[in-house]
């Protein structure tokens, strides 16, 4: 029982981190038809800048805000100068965002050095609670709470606000929205900014969770996020959270019971979904 609860919590926390990365990917893909292979780079930049700000100022909250801000700025730059010139050309998009990924993760090594950086949990989030013999680590609960809050906030933004309406309409039919007089370019930028901010937040939260941050973590998590986006369905926000939790849980349980197959299981899951249901479990468009 003890093990089961801990594994579930662990899986949920990892799932939420993947969700933060995958949600941006899926929204960006749904709206702009761009699969951003550099998203993992934004994740890693969030982690490095956030942890750096956290250790210099000593405030975890400021670190988180700094990470989100960094992510948003990088997101705007990416959209403006890297992705905008190649809208509509899939092959070029794949190639150029992959190149950006290279540059982003190498830049991290230039700025902060090639070695791992350790990240500590702030005092008020470290330690654990104990309920009848079951030990629950506080920081994991914190990650799950933050992930859930972000999910609700974005859900509210999408479902209840005007800009959310435009985004949802854009996912369905971009040209129609444009012909109704909406400046779709600005919507693109907005969504990209939100997506990049979420990715950076995810990276920042991962720091204290795993204890260390390193430049290649972006790529590692990006692969998981791609799997999630495929399983959940490209462009489906709800799908991304469901699939992220699924992948997180399967990762944590597999790592405990059959550690050799942890990553392979997720990849196989994605392969099966892609082959038999290419639009994803929740996806509307293929």
């Amino acid at each position, binding site marked *: 029982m003890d093990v089961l609860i801990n594994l579930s919590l662990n899986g949920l926390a990892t799932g939420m981190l993947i969700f933060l990365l995958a949600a941006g990917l899926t929204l960006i*893909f749904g709206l702009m038809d761009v*699969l951003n292979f550099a998203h993992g780079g934004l994740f890693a930049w969030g982690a490095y800048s956030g942890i750096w700000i956290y250790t210099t100022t000593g405030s975890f909250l400021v670190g988180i805000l700094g990470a989100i801000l960094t992510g948003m700025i990088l997101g705007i730059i990416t959209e403006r100068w890297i992705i905008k010139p190649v809208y509509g050309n*899939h*092959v070029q998009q794949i190639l150029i965002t992959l190149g*950006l990924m290279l540059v982003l993760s190498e830049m991290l090594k*230039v700025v902060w050095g090639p070695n791992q950086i350790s990240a500590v949990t702030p005092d008020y989030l470290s330690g654990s609670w104990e309920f009848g013999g079951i030990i629950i680590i506080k920081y994991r609960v914190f990650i799950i709470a933050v992930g859930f809050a972000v999910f609700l906030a974005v859900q509210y933004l999408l479902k209840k606000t005007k800009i959310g309406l435009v985004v949802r309409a854009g996912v369905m039919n971009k040209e129609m929205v444009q012909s109704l007089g909406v400046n779709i370019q600005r919507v693109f930028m907005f969504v990209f900014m939100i997506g990049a901010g979420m990715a950076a937040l995810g990276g920042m939260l991962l720091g204290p969770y795993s204890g260390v941050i390193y430049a290649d973590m972006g790529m590692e998590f990006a692969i998981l996020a791609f*799997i999630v986006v495929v399983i959940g369905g490209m462009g489906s926000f709800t799908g991304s959270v469901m699939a992220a939790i699924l992948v997180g849980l399967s990762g944590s349980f597999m790592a405990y019971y059959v550690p050799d197959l942890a990553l*392979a299981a997720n990849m196989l899951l994605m392969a099966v979904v*892609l082959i038999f249901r290419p639009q994803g479990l929740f996806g509307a468009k293929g």
Partner: protein
Amino acid sequence: MMTRMFSNRMNIIYLLVAGFLALLPFVYDSRSLLILLSQVFIFAVLAMSYDILLGYTGIVSFGHAMFFGIGAYTVGVFMKRFEPETSYFLLAVLVTILLTAVVSYIVGLLTLRLKSHFYAMLTMAFAGLFLVLAEKWRSVTYGNDGFTFRVPEFLKDRTDFYLICLVSMVIVFILLKRFTNSPLGRVLQAIRENEQRTESLGYSVLQYKVIASVVSGVIAGIAGILYAVSLRFVNTSVFTMDITLDALLMTIIGGVGTLVGAIIGAGIIEFSHHWLTELAKVHWIFERWIIFFGIIYILAVMFFPMGIVGSLQKLKFRKKKKASVPVGSETVSQGDS
């Protein structure tokens, strides 16, 4: 007729360069240069195989390391498990060709129906599976650390091996040149230009794409064999994304859809890698040499999507076109500029 003459002249240039490279070890005896050039030839083979996919068929695979790694591990396992003799080496080559053909056929059949994004991701996943396999199947692969092995007698001498790599590269170049100029190769290029249209003309696009992926996979496997033999060592790094990225960078920078571009790209990347790591002693930023390539690569995708060779060809083509324009209009355009 113009193109015929043009290609003849190009053939002479290729022949001269190949002859020069073949004579090089007898004229200028430098061990490090030979090793470096061997690496260039090996990666040129890999980049050319990638060019068949990216440049001629217009599909981006992120799993190319899979075939490279299969080749490298096959030869490694054969040399380690059995005697390092020529017969076993040839057997390893045969097994590599079979394995890469089967794997690329199955993977291609499963993945090539998907759209570009999904294809890229799924190939990445398959390559990831092979990486995991190589890490976990310890009894055969010795896990992450890999293993060293001895090579047959005829591959031991560095000069001989250099010549073998050079000959392999030239043979692969000629074969692929024939392949891309064949009717089949033309269909592949038609798929690159306009997939729907090719399909509506009655070609089974999937089948052609699978053929391209098999050809490319087998050649990448051969590059993997040469790579493992050159190091006499193999570990899981042959399955990593880095190998695919290298092939991608070489093809893009050299010029997609030209084959020669892949060779030139391999030369540029390998040589500058070598020099830039030496420059790292001067300034630490050169240790992060990949950053320069990343930036050049992004700029290349944006502004020179055809790479070095492609841009040169375009320039040549434009000049020729200008020459064939009637005299009157040419003087006008000259006046304008």
